[in-house]
């Protein structure tokens, strides 16, 4: 924002671009990908393929909303992938044991919020760095999951449990969740006191405290919210297929963090939006699908994502240097 005041002559459009720079870049990349791949192979633009692109990665976008909040608050969570795996297993176990589906949906989400409340309290009150606390949580969840399930898969899930497979008006329900939750979270971050205090705590904790914000409570609150989004993501993940694998999806936490970072959330905290992280998750899905349409090994996805991270962080650093 200081950069803007140095150029008072800028138009409203410039200010808009300044505020949503990274989001616009990601959006344009998505459009560019659709145009280029669509020209090479028009089937890429078929409604079924667009549906699969949006639906297949919606749970990553939803998890990235919570992750963005955590990173904006100046922390990180590397255990979210394991948490999603555990949520899926709890939900599946409840569903196959005859509990009503709403119980199978809601209980795991409450569990995720409770786990993250504990993580948040440890981070906020003991001042142990969040990466250490969540690394510990990652091992606990991962190890616990394998030990308790003994590697058995859950199958024979009841049809009414499969919320991610429902398609109101022909559009996968996961897409509705993604759009709705992103919009609500974006408004929440921008227009509520709590939302703005997340930016304040991530930007400068002591300044936030001086301004009357309780940073500890904010951090715990952010982690609980993150648990809510991770919980919803976990339910969508669990209900996408007929079986629930009892292993943690490999590298899921990295994909989620990457979505936040490429979406413009500064890894140093204090800036970014959840719209950016959702767009970035959609961009990943587009790249993943485009690689197959262009006959490129899926391994390039990781390489491309790595390049994107480096470029985004470099751009963030450059922006900060210009500001100060």
């Amino acid at each position, binding site marked *: 924002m200081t950069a803007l005041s140095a150029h008072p002559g800028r138009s409203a459009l410039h200010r808009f671009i300044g505020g949503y*720079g*990274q989001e616009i*870049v990601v959006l*344009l*990349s998505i459009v*560019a*990908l659709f145009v*280029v*791949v669509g020209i*090479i*192979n028009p*089937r*890429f633009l*078929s409604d*079924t*393929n667009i549906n*699969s692109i949006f639906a*297949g*990665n919606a749970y990553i976008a939803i998890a990235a909303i919570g992750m963005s909040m955590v990173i904006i608050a100046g922390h990180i969570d590397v255990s979210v992938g394991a948490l999603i795996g555990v949520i899926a297993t709890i939900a599946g176990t409840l569903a196959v044991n005859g509990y009503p589906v709403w119980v199978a949906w809601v209980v795991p989400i409450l569990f995720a919020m409770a786990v993250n409340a504990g993580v948040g309290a440890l981070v906020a009150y003991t001042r142990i760095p969040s990466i250490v606390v969540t690394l510990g949580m990652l091992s606990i969840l991962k190890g616990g999951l394998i030990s308790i399930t*003994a590697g*058995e*898969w859950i*199958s*024979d899930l009841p049809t009414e449990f499969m919320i991610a*497979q429902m398609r109101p008006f022909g559009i996968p329900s996961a897409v509705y969740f993604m759009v709705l939750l992103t919009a609500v979270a974006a408004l929440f971050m921008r227009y509520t006191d709590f939302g703005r205090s997340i930016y304040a705590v991530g930007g400068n904790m002591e300044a936030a405290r001086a301004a009357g914000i309780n940073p500890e409570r904010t951090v715990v609150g952010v982690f609980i919210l993150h648990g809510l989004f991770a919980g919803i993501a976990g339910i969508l*993940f669990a209900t*996408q*297929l*007929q*079986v629930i*694998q009892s*292993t943690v*999806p*490999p590298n899921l936490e990295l994909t989620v963090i990457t979505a936040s970072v490429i979406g413009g959330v500064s890894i140093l905290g204090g800036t970014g939006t959840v719209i950016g992280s959702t767009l970035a998750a959609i961009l990943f*899905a587009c*790249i*993943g*699908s*485009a*690689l*197959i*349409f*262009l*006959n*490129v*090994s*899926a*391994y*390039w996805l990781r390489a*491309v994502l790595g*390049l*994107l991270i480096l*470029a*985004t962080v470099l*751009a963030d650093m*450059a922006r900060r240097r210009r500001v100060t």
Partner: protein
Amino acid sequence: MKKLTMAAIVSLGLMTGSALAASAWTGGDDLPTNPLACDGTPSPAAAKPYDGGSPTNPPDRKGKKITVVDVPKLIGIGYFNATSKGIQDAAAELGNVDAKTDGPTKANIDEQITFLDNYITSGVDGILFAANDPVAIAPVLKKALEKGINVVGYDANSIPEARQWFVNQAEFNGIAKALVDSMAAEVGDEGGVAIVTSTFTTPNQARWIAEMAAYAEKCHPKMKWLETVEAQEDNNLSFNQATTLINKYGDDLKGIFGMTSVATPASAEAVTQAGKCGKIAVVGLATPNAMKPYVEKDCVKSVVLWNPVDLGYAAMQVLRAVADGTLQPGATSVKAGKLGDLQVINGSEILLGSPYVFTKENIAGFDF
């Protein structure tokens, strides 16, 4: 602006990447292939001297009642319950074997060694095992041989000299033939097919794909391979990759091969959710339980694996033959009860036979 340039670079990178597209069946390795005959005539076994071990001064057990312990990787799971059933079936049929299965409840090599050690001390005539680790299990098996105990492995081998014989459930070319033949039976000889595998470098999968390509070229030359995609061992990624294949090729795609027990059910799910059951065949390696929903809905017709009941049965028959002295080093085949003559391969291994194809008619009888 920098960021726009970056986006342009990425898009450009994707476009140039498309030039790397290969034409052969990707995902296979470069090792020599040995496709089986189209009609299934067994290929002549390559002469390789016996490389198994032998027990020290075993007592004469010919025709006498023997006690046998079976120590699988772990007990209490469907797969080894099935091998154990096969062992019991064979023991009942032979009438002169007292067999029991015992072992760790987790696939843990240390616990497995303790179980074996205890049974060696308590005194048995024969040991059947499926090793949790081929090297770590060797000393305790050698100890058994030194005590004159007959030792036969199945499912998971040890190093050869630590046991007498190993019953090999399936060879790469046999699995490849079963997969390609099943696909050809479903989609005809000219359909376009794609493969969902774990990674291009996973040894078993790469071997299978190489053998499939060789066998298809020999016996179904008009089968059109379209693409191989990688999906690691990840359920959701496998589903997304299979869905993208369906979207990409439309009606040109007639069948999908699943190369892992994760990829096959996920591909079946992708076909189901795309509403393409009956239009796109899914043939693959998988365990029956994961595939039952799709087989019962007629979305998947053939699931290829081996029959673990037969595997246990064969292992017990081989052990009896070794104890009786009817199976000696240098033999080229062994009689295995209702399974008939089984072929000796690789010096000291016995091939179970053709892989087993699970279908709607038989899949309900398996629980693993």
